[in-house]
C-alpha cells in the first residue's frame, strides 16, 4: 500500500451544473424575472396546475412556461392554446432538465417582457432534484391517487423543495390518501415548507396556493 498516494479533492458532484444555475439565477434577477421549477411524477397534473396558476395570476404578472419533456410537444401546445408563451424542450431521453437546457429555453423567450416563468420539469421524482435549474423556488407536487407514502419513497425531493402541492383532492373519496399523515411525513423531511391541497379540476385550493406564491414573488423584490 506504500506505493499509493491519497489526494484530497472535496468537491461537490454536479457542481458544474450548480454554477451555471447560479449564473442563470443572477441573470434572471437582474432582469427581474422570478423562476419557479415544478416537479412531480408523470400524470400528477403539472401542466394543469401551471394553467390554473397562470389564469389566477394574470394580469398581475407577465408569464411564460418552459416545458420539459422527453420527446413530445403536447404540454407546450396546451399552454400556448391558453394564450401564454411556451417553449418546449425535448430532452431526448434524459430524465430531468439541467441548467444548460433551461438556459436554451431562456434564450428563446422575451425575458425583458416577463415577470414570472415556470419550468415544468420531466415527470420524475428522483433525477430532477439533483439538478439545479436556476429557479428561485422549487415546488414538488403529488396527487391523491399516488398515495400518501411518496415522502418515504422519495425523501430527497421532499427534503429539497420549498413548497408542496397535493393535487386531485376532488377524487379523495375514492382513495385512502391520509392528508394528516402526508403532512407529518413532509414535515419530518422539511419542517417549514407549506403543503397546499388543490384540485386543478374544481379549482379548490388554487387561491391559497397563488396567494402564497404571490407573497414569495413580492418578497423576493
Amino acid at each position: 500500500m506504500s506505493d499509493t498516494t491519497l489526494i484530497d479533492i472535496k468537491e461537490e458532484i454536479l457542481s458544474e451544473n450548480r454554477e451555471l444555475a447560479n449564473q442563470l439565477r443572477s441573470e434572471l434577477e437582474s432582469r427581474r424575472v422570478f423562476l419557479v421549477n415544478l416537479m412531480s411524477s408523470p400524470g400528477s397534473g403539472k401542466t394543469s396546475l401551471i394553467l390554473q396558476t397562470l389564469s389566477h395570476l394574470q394580469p398581475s404578472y407577465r408569464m411564460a412556461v418552459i416545458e420539459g419533456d422527453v420527446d413530445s410537444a403536447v404540454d407546450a401546445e396546451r399552454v400556448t392554446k391558453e394564450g401564454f408563451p411556451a417553449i418546449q424542450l425535448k430532452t431526448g431521453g434524459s430524465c430531468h432538465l439541467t441548467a444548460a437546457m433551461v438556459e436554451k429555453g431562456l434564450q428563446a423567450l422575451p425575458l425583458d417582457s416577463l415577470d414570472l416563468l415556470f419550468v415544468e420539469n420531466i415527470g420524475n421524482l428522483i433525477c430532477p432534484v439533483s439538478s439545479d435549474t436556476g429557479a428561485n423556488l422549487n415546488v414538488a407536487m403529488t396527487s391523491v391517487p399516488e398515495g400518501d407514502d411518496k415522502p418515504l419513497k422519495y425523501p430527497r425531493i421532499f427534503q429539497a423543495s420549498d413548497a408542496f402541492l397535493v393535487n386531485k383532492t376532488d377524487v379523495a373519496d375514492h382513495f385512502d390518501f391520509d392528508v394528516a399523515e402526508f403532512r407529518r411525513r413532509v414535515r419530518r423531511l422539511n419542517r417549514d415548507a407549506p403543503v397546499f391541497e388543490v384540485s386543478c379540476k374544481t379549482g379548490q385550493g388554487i387561491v391559497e396556493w397563488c396567494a402564497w406564491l404571490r407573497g414569495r414573488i413580492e418578497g423576493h423584490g
Partner: protein
Amino acid sequence: MHELPVTKSILEIVLRHAAANGVERVSAINLRVGALSDLEPEWLQSYFDHISGGTPADGARLRVRRSPLTFRCGSCSAEFDAARESLDRVACPDCGSGDASVVAGTSYTVEAMEAA
C-alpha cells in the same frame, strides 16, 4: 439512468485533479453520498467503468461512504442520527418526541482519490 450525469461529473472532477497533480493512474475514488440520495453503488461503478475507459481513471474503484441522516428534535432541539429506514417512526433519543425533522443527509461529494 440518473446515475449517468453523476458519474460523468465524478469522472470530470477526478480527471481534472489527476491532470493538476500529474497522476497517471487513479486506483480508487472516495465518494461521500448522503443517506437521502438515491444512488446505487453497483450502477455507479458500472457506468464509471464504461465511461472512464482509456482515461487515467480507467479501472478505478469507487468507494461510496454514506453520510448519516441527521435529525433535529422539534421539542428539545437535540440533534441525532437515524437510519433512512426509520424515517417514518423516528423518535428523539433525549425526550422521546416524534416531531423531529431532517437537517442533513444530502451531501454528494468526491472526497479524495488514490493515485497508484
